[in-house]
């Protein structure tokens, strides 16, 4: 099978290079059959990558330990689910996964994009294929997943225990899907620049792709937080680790793009900015892979490191230079159709939102690279950890939350002071009421206080938007409120889905604020002994050690410590935390013992128990016990955000012909004659 895999890689590389060469040369413009061949080239790359992927999966599932990758990341006693997901556990497999998904997306883009963008598609095929060629070439040059060992070991080394978690089954693919799918909007942007078709057509072609990338990244980041929380055992979900930062960077710039692209669609402005954002987002997705794979920055998430970092750096720099050179060449053709006219306009609010999002991305990038800069300038190594990032980014994050509430309240072009008063009255009231409530409750942490007040303000904004829209329908059609809300959302999924995403974001902020009140205590308990901890809500939790049981499981020896938990004297149940000593199929230890956290979660707080180890090999044990407020809301925020994102990109809803959409780009048109009339009586803005 490795021979087939090797052949597929070479075939994929040749097909990708041929497609890219012909696509970029532009000769297809005079020869329709060549244009069709370029597009078919992307299908050929996809077919080759599917074959290569199946070959690797076959090797994994048949425990072909002669394949170095299979030996390095699996063992005979590894559960089947993790044997399958070991595909992306290591660097070589991850690169093949990249190439596979990219080629699938590239082919899919060719299939689902409408005929009216056919002039762009050969260029899109060329760009996706050149990226695919880079990944395939990197595999063939220095990270081949089909490399063989000189002898066949009887068993593999097994999978890192931290990766033997359901979160790692789904989190890396989601994140990779986000990273990889960014290539498609990037390919369309380059295609628009090359073909000089710089109207909003390419934006409409990539709308779903950008949302899809953004959503995959958001889900991937949230799942990564969940994995870190349940698996790493430090009681938190975000540590500003370089790998975490690398996933956040393209998400931030993509979020900025999703806002600024609305200004281009409506007003024909920010064309250069939007193209720059797409290019930067793509480069950041490559940068993320570069810093995690190169070893240039240490990370707890870097499970693999090798010399592919240099190749990524070369690709990153050359792609950036090429893309920005092309942008510079087309600069004159990207003049805005209109100008921003007022500070009190939605365009301005979106611009400030973009500024803060890009500012946060810059500060995260700056902090991530600052140790390298410091060593380069001063020759002194420094550590840039959570205290630095919190100090710099929390104020920016709060500013972003404020703008999330302000943006929807301001009209396009210009808003009158009276309108501003009317729009801000209720949301500001929400915020002030929250402030009063929190002051009475005695909350003093300034950042948590600010986050909760601003979250209330944003919630007020979103509620008001839903309420006014639904009220208009109730008055006009006499619909019941639930029906009015449903139809309101259904008629404009993009807008109201976006509001739900805002709700998801504010829920995240509320949850993040909760961690300011985290309580942690270490205890040593013999069986029967009890420890007490007071939670931030004033509850007294007691933990009684019930003992440690040990047993053998499929690929590990488990030591499970059980604690009986009571809250204010009332029994809540038991919590189990484990130590797992993984062994191979011969019973030999494979990794250092790993920890499985015991978590009891409710809406207010999580009880988080870590069995730290035993005293002298007895049941007398050390525990790290934390009470983590509002953690449940992080995952709920992720669900709301995902639902909002899906709603935004769901097909259907209100549609408008492209020609008509261009006509109303600078404002909107309202029919005042009644619901059944077609006569536009008032064109409101333009």
């Amino acid at each position, binding site marked *: 099978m490795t021979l087939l895999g090797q052949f597929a890689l070479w075939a994929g590389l040749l097909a990708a290079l041929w497609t890219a060469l012909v696509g970029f040369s532009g000769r297809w413009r005079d020869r329709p059959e060549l244009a069709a061949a370029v597009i078919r080239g992307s299908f050929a790359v996809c077919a080759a990558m599917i074959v290569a992927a199946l070959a690797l999966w076959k090797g994994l599932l048949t425990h072909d330990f002669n394949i170095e990758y299979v030996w390095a990341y699996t063992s005979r006693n590894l559960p089947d689910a993790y044997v399958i997901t070991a595909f992306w556990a290591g660097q070589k497999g991850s690169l093949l996964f990249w190439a596979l998904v990219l080629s699938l997306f590239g082919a899919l883009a060719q299939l689902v994009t409408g005929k009216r963008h056919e002039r762009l598609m050969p260029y899109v095929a060329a760009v996706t294929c050149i990226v695919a060629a880079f990944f395939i070439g990197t595999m063939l040059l220095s990270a081949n997943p089909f490399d063989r060992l000189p002898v066949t070991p009887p068993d593999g080394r097994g999978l890192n225990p931290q990766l033997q978690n359901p979160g790692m089954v789904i989190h890396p693919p989601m994140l990779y899907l986000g990273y990889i799918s960014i290539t498609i909007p990037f390919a369309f942007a380059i295609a628009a620049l090359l073909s000089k078709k710089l109207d909003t057509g390419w934006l409409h072609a990539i709308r779903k792709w950008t949302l899809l990338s953004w959503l995959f990244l958001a889900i991937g980041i949230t799942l990564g937080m969940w994995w870190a929380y349940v698996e790493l055992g430090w009681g938190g979900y975000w540590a500003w680790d370089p790998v975490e930062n690398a996933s956040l960077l393209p998400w931030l710039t993509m979020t900025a793009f999703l806002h600024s692209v609305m200004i281009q669609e409506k007003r024909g402005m920010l064309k250069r900015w939007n193209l720059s954002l797409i290019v930067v987002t793509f480069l950041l997705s490559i940068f993320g892979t570069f810093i995690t794979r190169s070893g240039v920055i240490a990370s707890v998430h870097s499970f693999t490191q090798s010399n592919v970092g240099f190749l990524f750096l070369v690709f990153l720099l050359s792609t950036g230079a090429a893309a920005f050179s092309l942008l510079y060449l087309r600069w004159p053709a990207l003049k805005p159709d209109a*100008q921003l006219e007022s500070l009190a306009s939605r365009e301005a609010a979106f611009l400030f939102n973009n*500024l803060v999002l890009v500012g946060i991305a810059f500060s995260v990038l700056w902090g991530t690279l*600052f140790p390298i800069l410091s060593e380069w300038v001063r020759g002194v190594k*420094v550590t*840039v*950890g959570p205290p630095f990032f919190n100090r710099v980014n929390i104020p920016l994050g709060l500013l972003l939350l404020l703008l999330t509430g302000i943006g929807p309240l301001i009209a396009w072009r210009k808003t009158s002071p009276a*309108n501003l008063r009317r729009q801000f009255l209720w949301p500001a009231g929400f915020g002030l009421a929250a402030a009063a409530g929190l002051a009475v409750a005695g909350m003093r942490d300034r950042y948590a206080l600010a986050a909760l007040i601003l979250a209330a303000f944003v919630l007020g904004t979103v509620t008001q938007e839903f309420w006014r829209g639904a009220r208009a329908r109730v008055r006009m059609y006499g619909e019941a409120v639930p029906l009015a809300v449903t139809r*309101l959302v259904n008629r404009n999924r*993009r807008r109201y889905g976006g509001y739900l995403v805002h709700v998801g974001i504010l829920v995240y902020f509320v949850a993040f604020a909760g961690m300011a009140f985290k309580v942690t205590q270490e205890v040593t308990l013999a069986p029967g002994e009890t420890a007490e901890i007071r939670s931030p809500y004033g509850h007294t939790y007691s933990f009684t050690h019930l003992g440690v049981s040990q047993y053998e499981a499929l690929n590990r020896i488990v030591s499970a410590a059980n604690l009986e938990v009571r809250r204010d004297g009332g029994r809540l149940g038991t919590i189990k935390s484990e130590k797992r000593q993984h062994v191979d199929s011969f019973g030999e230890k494979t990794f250092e013992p790993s920890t499985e956290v015991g978590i009891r979660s409710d809406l207010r707080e999580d009880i988080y128990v870590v069995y730290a180890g035993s005293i002298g090999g007895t049941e007398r044990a050390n525990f790290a016990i934390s009470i983590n407020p509002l953690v449940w809301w992080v995952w709920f925020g992720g669900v709301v955000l995902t639902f909002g994102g899906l709603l935004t990109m769901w097909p259907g809803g209100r549609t408008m012909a492209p020609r008509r959409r261009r006509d109303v780009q600078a404002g909107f048109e309202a029919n005042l004659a*009644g619901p059944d009339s077609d006569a536009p009586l008032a064109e409101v803005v333009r």
Partner: protein
Amino acid sequence: MSDTIGRRGFLAVLGGAVLLPQQDADRLRWPSAPGRARDTVTGAHNSEVIKSIERKLKCTCGCNLDIFTCRTTDFTCTYSPELHKEVVALHDAGRTPEEILDAFVAKYGEQALMAPPPSGFNLAGYLVPSIVVLTAGTILALVLLRRDRVTPVPPAAGPGAEEGDGISSEEQERLDRALAEVAD
């Protein structure tokens, strides 16, 4: 002889009955399976002062964690428990938190701190992002304010526009509804 042995045996059984259950009852079947043996938790482990100092100091094991997080998370790390003992020893010797941090910097270098001290070149690390955002924001605001003055634009009727602009209330309702449906 046999009597002696018997007596010793009897004593051993008796001793075992009294002592062994206490020693072995909580003895684990695989004593090393839960990992490295732990020390009993002391007051210093839960001291808020010690915790706050340790949260500012990086573990030297190669992880990216602070000493407190590492010693309460990575139970395979042999560095963080020793660094914890160093912190406790300095604290017990009467050193202030600042002096303890300085002692770690003197011993392990500036990278011992979880965040660089905000002085000298490090100030660039803290200030550059904020300066960039503030400068760009100020320029943007000034440009928009200038345009506000030179190009008067009639207020747009966005969602929630003020009533009484020369249209009837029924028209206003229809307008509100239409705008609510079309405006993003």
